[in-house]
């Protein structure tokens, strides 16, 4: 503290230093708050480091064991075994994002710029409530309600659009397809994206909006010209947060998706590529020794994928920030 270096004054005589150098009176609240917040900040770093260390240490046997032993005692040779699941993780999350983003942006714009104020508040609250529904409940809903309900849609898509490879193959008899899993995931990431983008849209400077309207823009043109450019960085980071959630979602996917270790881009059949998280959840109860190490190494791969997604998001946001309407 710079105040400590000030020359000590005689005990009873108050000196008259320049006003800017008056030593600040130390208040106990300040130091308590500082300690608490520093501690909290450090804790999260420590926890992250411990998780990473745990994953690394437990994953090492899966990465170092010779190939023949991995084939004999594990699920297979790890580098080739994990590839389909890594693909499935990204594939399912990408579909979820594709389905969720347009809806989320629509809801956010409706709440921030179209809906009457009273309705907007209620709707925003309802969307946030979606985030509080446990993923197991989404999983159950996916199996029992959504999957059977989607089957006619899938049959139709397959019959009329089956020439597109995505919709090809033999339609699933249970509806537990990648598309169903993606819809469930989309519903789960909807509240995150909606809440964040809504907040960003509300931050649009009123002057920009009014200027656009004053120039004769319609409401849609105003949104297009002022709100969306201003919120672009926010939209991207909201999507990336949603994507992170979709990548890591375990329970709902494990319950809904009929997964296997085959790489396929068909989204309406019984054969779908499983995700890493769901594979871990499904196999961990019976796994031991090397198999357990391999599953944890799978967790490490998922950790890396999620980290990469977040870093890409930060990079995009940083790049966009320069010419977004925010400055």
């Amino acid at each position: 503290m710079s105040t400590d270096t000030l020359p000590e004054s005689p005990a009873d005589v108050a000196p008259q230093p320049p006003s800017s150098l008056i030593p600040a009176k130390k208040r106990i609240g300040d130091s308590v708050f500082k300690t608490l917040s520093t501690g909290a900040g450090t804790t999260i770093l420590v926890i992250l480091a411990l998780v990473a260390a745990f994953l690394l240490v437990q994953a090492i046997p899966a990465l170092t064991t010779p190939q023949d032993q991995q084939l004999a005692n594990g699920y297979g040779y790890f580098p080739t075994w994990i590839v389909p699941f890594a693909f499935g993780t990204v594939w399912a999350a990408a579909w979820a994002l594709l389905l969720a983003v347009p809806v989320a942006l629509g809801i956010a714009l409706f709440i921030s710029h179209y809906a009457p104020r009273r309705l907007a508040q209620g709707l925003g609250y309802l969307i946030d409530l979606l985030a509080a529904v446990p993923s197991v409940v989404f999983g159950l809903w996916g199996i029992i309600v959504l999957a059977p309900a989607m089957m006619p849609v899938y049959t139709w898509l397959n019959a009329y659009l089956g020439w597109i490879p995505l919709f090809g193959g033999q339609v699933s008899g249970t509806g537990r397809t990648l598309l169903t899993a993606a819809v469930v995931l989309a519903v789960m990431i909807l509240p995150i994206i909606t809440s964040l983008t809504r907040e960003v849209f509300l931050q649009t400077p009123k002057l920009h909006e009014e200027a656009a309207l004053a120039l004769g823009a319609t409401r849609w043109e105003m949104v297009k010209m002022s709100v969306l450019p201003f919120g672009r960085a926010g939209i991207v980071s909201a999507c990336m947060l949603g994507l992170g959630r979709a990548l890591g979602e375990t329970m709902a996917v494990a319950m809904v998706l009929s997964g296997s270790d085959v790489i396929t881009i068909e989204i309406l059949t019984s054969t779908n590529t499983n995700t890493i998280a769901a594979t871990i959840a499904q196999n961990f109860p019976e796994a031991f020794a090397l198999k357990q190490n391999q599953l944890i190494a799978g967790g490490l791969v998922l950790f890396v994928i999620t980290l990469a997604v977040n870093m890409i998001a930060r990079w995009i946001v940083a790049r966009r920030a320069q010419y977004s309407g925010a400055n």
Partner: protein
Amino acid sequence: MLKISKIGAPVALLLAGSMALAGCAANEQTGGSTTSGSSLSGTLTGKGASSMKAAQEKWTADFQTANTGVTVNYSPDGSGAGREAFVSGAANFAGSDRALKDSEMGAGKFAGCAASSSALNLPVYISPIAVVFKVDGVTDLKLDADTLAGIFAGTITKWDDAKIKALNPDAGLPSANITAVHRSDDSGTTQNFTEYLSAVAPSVWTKDPDGQWPFPGGEAAKGTSGVIDAVTNGTNTIGYADESAAQNLSKAQIKVGDEFLSPTAEAAAKIVDQSSRVDGRADNDWALNLDRKAAGVYPIVLVSYAIVCEEYKDASVATLVKAYVGYIVSADGQAAGQSAAGSAPLSADMQSKLKTAVDSIK
């Protein structure tokens, strides 16, 4: 709302954790007020197959009620984990969906057993696996091993396939695709189902038995309940699951010899009586070569073993194991298992044979 859920999650975790702990404590105190003539005391640790989780829960509860000084812990971490823990001495007994292989047996290989002692494999839990289906307008379905293997291997794809029609001439089978549901997780049910197919229909089912589904692709569901849900909510589906979980679904009859058998407890339990014992084992080791072709026996069953020492290092552990496993193979224990888990009780003859084996534990 988001903020609340962020704070709420750790709090909920803490609450859930403390409730789980409270649950354990309550479990251990079960029957604490009842008096019993038992002089047994101590803690018995078991680990292994999750297939007999429900039965083990019932057995431990009943046993602790009768012997208030004893605590029995069975953690259903899987057969492999159970065998590993038994070998390392971390568990006093293991539950396993298969007996120990010859290469795994031998004196001195088990840390918890006396140096001269090998292990004993005792088949204590029999659970019939039903082939369940949901096809519009069909309530009775008869299948033989080749047809069943063809359906699950993907070589028979339509319900009105000639092979299915030949077995079910009167059923109104639709010309629809078959959706065959298998387990997505590693399980003893899959292990035994594939064992049956590869033993009885080797020409159609070319894969080795495995706890993990050996074919790539196909409809997969997590756990017994996942398979049941998928079959129930789908159309033209077929799957396999523990018989006890399949109450509301139609179950196929399986051809054995010249007759078609339903997955009843009696027909399933006979497999233990009819099967031959593994050669070269001790008199009291009941490792079995399950005979899935024997007449009158429902062949798709899961048999779980209790693996114990011939002679324990610690005599007090031996006393507890004898009492606990002795209870499991008794008529009472088997009936309790049937009521709690829907397992098939061992025959009276088998019960007395296993009793002799348990009595030999030192």
